[in-house]
């Protein structure tokens, strides 16, 4: 296979097709609609299931039904649509059926806008739906990575009978980059023994998220936590850049991460020993790796396109050992590398307190950027 110039949304859709997705349900919402459109053409032509639902609420429940048959299934949406799916998602989590979701995040809350954002981090990484569950969350920063993680998402979903999110943003969805698609996998013909497909002469199957006896729900919750423990042990993913001698380590995921890479390179050109740690699995979060980094780097700079939702997880990992500063753009604004570079250069000069809230310090510095008057 050779590289093609591919748009992120279409690359993720075609990657899913080639990974053998059997059914896709969705509802149009910017900035991910190309994904739905691609599926509407590809899947029926391959004899697979595509359905544009009447709402995201219906779409996620269609996905739920199809997932119960053991089929490889996927849904995609953008932030407001993902909010509508949270009910169904909780049921899917409780039923322990594998599904893949792609969230092309946009500015919010509410209707917000359609510009790139990372504001759904907490909703997706730390819950969203009700109850006690843990989705696997993967964050690509390039079109190639979006392809690779989409394929991986299906395998992980089935391996752990889990929800797997691929969280992109409008930038990754709309960007074109050279990338290589995987070969077409055949759609499977054998299904897991838990699948509800009609008993067909075999034992009866039943799938549900209902455990009416609390003691049974307790066991189910414990079982899910056991699975999550295995995920934590095996599915941590991240990428490091220039960390060997880095004194200032920038931490950022997805689009913010790759923008930070430009800033780190420019800082190096100016003689500042900067590096980048880019979490790829946001859940499970690379806690131990960040803790290790905090032992040989001097300062951290967390960069996000939200008000510091991942920052909390980074602080949890670093445990106050080294000072952390924070920089963000909000509401659909994408930072330029120059802004992050300026932060790196500032941090290189300034003492950062170990105490205090990095978010509050950033708010103070940031106010003039948006002409904020108190």
């Amino acid at each position, binding site marked *: 296979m050779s590289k093609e*110039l591919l748009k992120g949304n279409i690359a993720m859709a075609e990657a899913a097709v080639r990974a053998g997705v059997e059914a896709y349900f969705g509802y149009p919402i910017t900035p991910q609609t190309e994904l739905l459109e691609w599926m509407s053409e590809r899947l029926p032509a391959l004899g697979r299931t595509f359905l544009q639902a009447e709402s995201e609420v219906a779409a996620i429940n269609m996905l739920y039904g199809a997932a119960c048959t053991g089929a490889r299934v996927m849904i995609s949406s953008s932030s407001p649509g993902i909010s509508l799916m949270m009910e169904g998602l909780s049921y899917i989590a409780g039923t322990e059926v594998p599904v893949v979701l792609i969230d092309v995040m946009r500015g919010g809350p509410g209707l917000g806008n359609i510009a790139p954002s990372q504001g759904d981090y907490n909703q997706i990484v730390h819950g969203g739906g009700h109850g006690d569950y843990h989705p696997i969350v993967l964050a690509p920063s390039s079109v190639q990575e979006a392809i690779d993680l989409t394929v991986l998402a299906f395998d992980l979903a089935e391996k752990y009978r889990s929800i797997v999110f691929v969280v992109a943003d409008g930038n990754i969805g709309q960007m074109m980059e050279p990338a290589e698609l995987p070969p077409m996998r055949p759609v499977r013909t054998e299904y897991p023994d838990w699948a509800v497909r009609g008993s067909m002469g075999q034992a009866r199957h039943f799938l549900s998220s209902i455990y009416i006896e609390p003691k049974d729900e307790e066991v189910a919750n414990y079982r899910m936590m056991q699975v999550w423990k295995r995920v934590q042990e095996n599915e941590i993913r991240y990428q490091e850049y220039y960390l060997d001698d880095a004194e200032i380590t920038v931490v950022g995921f997805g689009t913010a991460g*790759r923008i930070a890479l430009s800033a780190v390179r420019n800082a190096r050109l100016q003689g500042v020993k900067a590096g980048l740690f880019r979490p790829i699995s946001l859940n499970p979060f690379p806690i131990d790796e960040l803790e290790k980094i905090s032992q040989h780097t001097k300062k951290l700079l967390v960069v996000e396109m939200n008000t510091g939702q991942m920052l909390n997880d980074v602080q949890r990992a670093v445990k106050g050992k080294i000072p952390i500063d924070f920089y963000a753009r909000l509401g659909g604004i994408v930072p330029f590398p120059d802004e992050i570079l300026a932060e790196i250069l500032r941090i290189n000069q300034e003492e950062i307190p170990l105490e205090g809230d990095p978010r509050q310090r950033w708010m103070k510095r940031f106010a003039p950027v948006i002409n904020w008057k108190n």
Partner: protein
Amino acid sequence: MQTEIIIAGFGGQGALFAGQVLAYAAMDSGHQVTWIPSYGPEMRGGTANCTVIIADEEIGSPLVLNPKAAIVLNLPSLDKYEPLVVPGGVLVVNTSLVNRTAQRTDIENVFIPVNEIAEELGNRRLLNMVALGALLAKLPVLSLDEVEKGLVDHLPERHKRLLEVNKLALHRGAEYALQAVT
């Protein structure tokens, strides 16, 4: 080392496609490349722009504040991007739709009436290729041959009959830029 190019204009002027042609040519020539559009309500009849970055290592940010070059196909785009081009960079200005001169003296300005040149070639929609040719004459990040090959390999099938005239437009733009007093 990377080169950033912004192409901006009204919807329908072919700014996004010109960027894609550049991106295809860069990819086929073995470079790293990103192409990213502005998207959203503004793309429906309003302004359209894209950023192309061509590099020889993994590209970080697909967006830059200060590009090495910009092609501005209308006045709002000139107003927006003229101040942002890095010193020593290149600014291609469509004088067919812009009634003022550029003010920067620390960049190379190319004033070119791309609408009229495209019309002379018989198809107004060629204006984006004329502008791209003009840029490449002053910013040799890719050769005209490489971009021509990008057109050959990636022009949509339904537009293949326009291949030769697209190539001609690229060359006409480049020739104009080289002859023009800048």
